[in-house]
């Protein structure tokens, strides 16, 4: 049975949703990007550029358009928010050689995005080094207004942190059907961002890996939809 339109209209057109971390206000976007209006900073996690060509090098010829796709998506976000600073939270490249495999035109697109704004590459486990060709500042983490931006979340119930690394996804079962989507997951004190890259899969937030990061209470989840970003009650979520 196909349901085509929601019969109750309530939460339409929420392309982004307000998110608060330790009192600071952010906007989480349905694309998986996070915008910090007070700092005019756009934050994205886990771009995994050149994942396609990394597979091709091992004999699996995945479509070589993932870098282009990811950069186009990023360009749209930059267009939308016009940030002064862009911060990539690590694993921006799928592997340390990724930059060398990038298409010239993709490198040029990246440089165009970097014009007139600061660009910060946080390093991650996939990209401990960033090729200088990709410009920008490279650092293991950065603290802005008391909020730490890093790749891998610190274990334990840490606060004042925005991180990536885990590619959080949530699974919803309703009306006999199931839906699995990347998501933001947080508790008001820290936030784990979804992966932004075109070929990135997701890890269910009910997985053991997330257990040490958040206490039992106050978990907040925003699932990425095609038309909007949707805050979803954790009790509706399911294991894989």
């Amino acid at each position: 049975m196909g349901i085509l339109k929601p019969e109750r209209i309530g939460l339409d057109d929420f392309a982004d949703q307000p998110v608060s971390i330790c009192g600071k206000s952010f906007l989480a976007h349905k694309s998986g990007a996070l915008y910090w209006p007070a700092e005019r900073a756009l934050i994205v996690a886990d771009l995994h550029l050149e994942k396609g060509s990394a597979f091709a090098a091992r004999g699996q010829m995945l479509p070589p358009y993932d870098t282009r796709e990811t950069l186009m998506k990023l360009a749209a976000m930059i267009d939308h928010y016009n940030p002064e600073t862009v911060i990539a939270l690590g694993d921006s490249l799928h592997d340390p050689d990724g930059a060398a495999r990038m298409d010239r035109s993709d490198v040029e697109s990246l440089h165009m995005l970097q014009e007139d704004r600061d660009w910060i590459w946080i390093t991650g486990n996939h990209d401990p080094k960033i090729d200088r060709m990709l410009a920008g500042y490279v650092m293991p983490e950065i603290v802005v207004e008391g909020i730490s931006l890093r790749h891998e979340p610190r274990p334990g119930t840490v606060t004042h942190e925005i991180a990536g690394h885990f590619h959080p996804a949530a699974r919803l079962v309703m009306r006999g059907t199931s839906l699995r989507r990347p998501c933001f997951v947080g508790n008001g004190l820290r936030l784990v961002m979804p992966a932004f890259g075109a070929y990135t899969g997701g890890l269910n937030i009910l997985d053991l890996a997330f257990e040490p990061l958040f206490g039992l209470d106050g978990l907040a989840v925003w699932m990425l939809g095609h038309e909007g970003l949707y805050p979803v009650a954790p009790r509706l979520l399911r294991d894989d």
Partner: protein
Amino acid sequence: MLTTPKKAGRKRQPPAPKKPVLPPEIAAWFSRRGWQPRAHQLALLDAARQRQSTLLIAPTGAGKTLAGFLPSLVALGGEKRPRSGAGLFTLYISPLKALATDVERNLIEPIAEMGLKIRTETRTGDTSAARRQRQRVKPPQIMLTTPEQIALLLSHPDAPHLFADLDTVILDELHALAPSKRGDLLALDLARLRTLAPNMRTVGLSATVARPSELRGYLVPQTAPDSMTLLSELVTVEGGAKPEISILEVEDEIPWSGHTARYAMQEVYDAIRAHKLTLVFVNARLQAEVAFQELWRINDDNLPIGLHHGSLEAPQRRKVEAAMAAGKLRAVVATSTLDLGIDWGDVDLVIHLGAPKGASRFLQRIGRSNHRMDEPSRGLLVPGNRFEVLECRAAQQAAEEGAQDAILSRSGTLDVLAQHILGMACEAPFDPDLLFNEVRSALPYADLTRQQFDRAIEFVSTGGYALKSYERFAKLRREPNGKLRVSNPRVAQQYRLNVGTIVDSPMLKVRLVSARRAKSRTAIGGRVLGEVDEYFAEQLPPGATFVFAGEVLRFEGMRDTEVFVSRASSEDPMVPSYGGNKFPLSTHLAARVRAMLANPKDWPSLPPAVGQWLTLQSERSVLPATDEVLIETFPRSGRHFLVAYPFEGRLAHQTLGMLLTRRLDRAGLHPLGFVANDYALGLWTQGDLTAHIADGRLSLADLFDEDMLGDDLDAWLAESNLMKRTFRLAAVIAGLIERRHPGKVKSGRQVTMSTDLIYDVLRRHDPGHLLLEAAWADAATGLLDIRRLGDFLARIKNRIRHQSLSRVSPLSVPVLLEIGREAVAGHARDALLREAAEALAEEAMGTSENGHSEAGTHRT
């Protein structure tokens, strides 16, 4: 089965003046058993002497297999022949491993009794690695195997030596094998075998089919310069005794919908009790579970009743098969796993629960009983609902006339071609021009263009992308002489792990745990009961009970690739809605059902409940003529319904439903949902359909116009989950995505995710890509049945019969009852998210009592 294992005399007869038909040892064997070689067996011998490839069409029990092997036995039993290769003389290829093993057993005995010294061996996925290795160097004279093994053997550099002496290839159950991707791959492999052994000829063994020419063309190389199809010889054995088929009549009311035929279980049980061994066929695995459970519930006599379907663990299936063969069972509930060829026992009744959906499959299943030509097979049809009564009647008529469903002619798919090209490169560097000609000699690829072929090579080598190239990672390299070779040995290893066209949907193991341990994260639990489709498992809410492997189980949770279940105390499981029937209603049976509806003179012969139902329909609405489609519109509980009766099968109806709702949305009628079964399609809207049609704002002719297969289809496919699944299958077969191997990948879910991402990216950046083309071609005949939908739309042009009614019509009841039973189709996924978010909002506002509202049934 053979009773006179006496050693045959080795005494030679004096040479006869004319060549005797059979050599003395074999002739003696026949006469010792009191048999005469049958006419078709002699005809095949004759064809072999003239080196003709032949299709043998014969009913079960006609001695088909022996006919196929006899020429090889004659040749191998005769004088020693000069060898130029490894000595492999005959290949027997069957779609099932078990069938290959079974046939070998039935072949070894006569060979021994004839006193012939012929080495036969099977080679399947179950054969040990050491033995398979040895078989490549020192093969038997007769090898019994499956299509995948041929592809594997052909990918090794020693293939030319291995197959140099090949004389005969026997293709069993060709009617089941040829019209599939597996058949495409086998056709390409046959073409290759002909190159390696130019003298080789083929013998196809088939059940009766509507159009033998498709199979005859499959058996011979297509080398005619024009588009003419060359055909093999044909030997047909007329059917034996006519099957005796009845339709179960019961006192109870026949249900309006459903397929399980639960209402008739007592009668089914009584029939089992009255026979020696009964096969109970159903159309889907979970129907088998339900039937098995229901039969045991009323099994007061404790009859040994078994269960057999593809989700059960192999050892469990083997046990049931052995028990059948040993005569220890009285009934087996089975799915298509028991459709083909194997004799597991002396079946004297076949019961079909639910309508058989196709005339040919039905005949094949009925043929499982009384496996001898001169005795009639006995079948009992048990319709699951009122429409199925009509369908069962149609199947009964078709069986009496011996009418078959037509096999759709097909073009070989490009994903299979890509796999084959890589396999050829793994064997040895190939010349593209020669390979192109070879490929085109296979019937499914006879119309392949050079451009398509070159694109397939490009795909194999670098992925074949339009805008960017992986040249430096290419899998194929051009040698100075123009031949293409694999760039490194790892490519061949990868190929061999991924060979074949059978891609199962991700399956999860079902593991039994104690209810208490299931709660802890470390539960590893007890034995594995079998496997379920991931798409089924992920729908289960924790605590749901369902029937599997003959037990009522409670769903505890999923971990990685396993589903944890515990034994449920409940006697009354929640029966899962499991994708309905696997097979859609065949075109042929559909035409018969339409004719029956249009002819009130037939109705008195139907069960009274059904006759009354149709009469009532003709009073309240109409019944369409055979060449019309009936469309009814009526209001009901504040909504407006449209029900159409195309009779084109569930898959085509679902596609039609998707496309119609898009159009109605554009027309401002606010469609809310739809539901489809094999016969009809119902959809409902906020807008008043009847009024819009009456004043001309909505034209049904426009709504059902063929042009919906253009842009609307395209736009919908972009989002369709079925299309993504189709794409995944093509991507695995073509080698873009690796198959999952045990221990290699964590969970199927992740694989599904990533192919979906690849599909999205490819569609956006390279919409003309070969794999998208292949997936589209599959969708046309596969899960979306677009071809059939197209035929339907063309057929009903100017033949729409509209009835506007004041209330629901009798004929529409079955399809409308499916509302709420089927899962939400893939389209409006954001609507679900929105609803989940609303539930959260309501919770926050303190207004929510529950977050789940029933689909399609709450107020507008």
